């Protein structure tokens, strides 16, 4: 199977836009967000950045340099930007949204 990857033709852009619509993240008020940053949810993230960031949030909350709300806001913003990349992990944690 050949994948032609950098084709930015109009047809391809339409495909990308339609594909991207499938990917959303859970609402900010779901309690699991806070449980991720505080470490209450024990999950080894497949996504490398989420794994690193979740450890960083937990560490910073424990040493008082970040509040759970600040950490949750930061994580939510990051996941909004990279919605596609977090789907696999979030299906395990949030199940559905």
């Amino acid at each position, binding site marked *: 199977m050949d994948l032609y990857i950098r084709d930015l033709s109009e047809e391809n852009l339409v495909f990308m836009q339609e594909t991207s619509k499938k990917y959303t993240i859970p609402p900010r008020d779901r309690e699991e967000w806070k449980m991720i940053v505080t470490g209450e949810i024990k999950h080894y993230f497949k996504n490398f950045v989420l794994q*690193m960031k979740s450890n960083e949030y937990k560490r910073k909350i424990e040493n008082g340099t970040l509040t759970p709300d600040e950490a949750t806001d930061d994580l939510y913003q990051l996941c909004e930007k990279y919605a596609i990349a977090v789907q696999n992990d979030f299906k395990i944690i949030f199940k559905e949204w």
Partner: protein
Amino acid sequence: MKTVDIKNHQLLDLDTTIGLIKSGKTLVVSGDEQVLSKLPAGNWIGGTIPYFYLKEGPGRLDKEHIFVTDFTDALVDAKVATYNVNNLQKVGENGFDNGFHFLILPALRDIHLSFALNAPDYSNIYTNPLLGFIAGADLDEFTTGSLSKVYNGQTAQAFTDEAVVLHAKLPARQVARLEIVNVFEPSNEISLEVFQDGFTVQDCLIDGQRRNLYEFVKENALDVSYPLVSNYGGASVNVSFQRLDDENQQVIFYAPLFAGRKYTLSKKTDDYVKAFADKAIQALAEEQHIIYNCNCILNYLYGKLDQHSIGYSGAATFGEIGYQLLNQTFTYLAIDES
């Protein structure tokens, strides 16, 4: 075999590469020093890597061609910068609001060690992907002291102790996504700790007892094609064996080991080369818009990629960069609509 064609990511001759540079293209290049040193100034960065795996057939050690990734069409802006060991921590703060940072470091130098130790604590490091590779050389020359080089194309200058970065800006509706394919997991069979930071280990603690690591590897017939694994900031990170130094009874690694951290062996698989190739091709086949990939030199060597194709092309690097220093991984950069 399934193949993956990444447009504008290919092995080219010197004249074609010079033509692309002169036409203003934004490039990341890998090649031997003898060809990279002939490139004119322009919008490019590069690193010495003369090993390539190829979609069309067996890969090769090639000192005449250059592996070129042309990012021009994907970007709306880009800038090239050189960093030293004192300011590399600012790499995530520079660049653009939306894009990626492509970093090339020289192998086994202070800046390589510093990056490996400190990258997880760099500010703003996860806002945009930080990817890239560690430059290398012909292994016969590298093991006898030849230095890798990185190039700032804007001045066509080469460096042995500094880093070069392409800060890339993407269109507003697109985001870059870095993916890391790693088949290794910690076995927890032994616990290894070193006494000082560095790429070379002589004595160390193995399960709490002082041992010479070289002797331990020999006595236990450890398979050095499998890396050590450690937890760096929550993520499992490989540290690959470069070679056993018989003369000095020491072990040399592709990434530094750090005092205070615990390392263990990685789990054996039935056929790691197949496991790796299958996992990588599966990951690629599910993607739509990949613009770059690279693979570790050890996957090239142990996977005998000089004898067969694995369905896609790239440079075989002396370490990969995926937000932090990686070893024995396959990394790629994909573009998604945001």
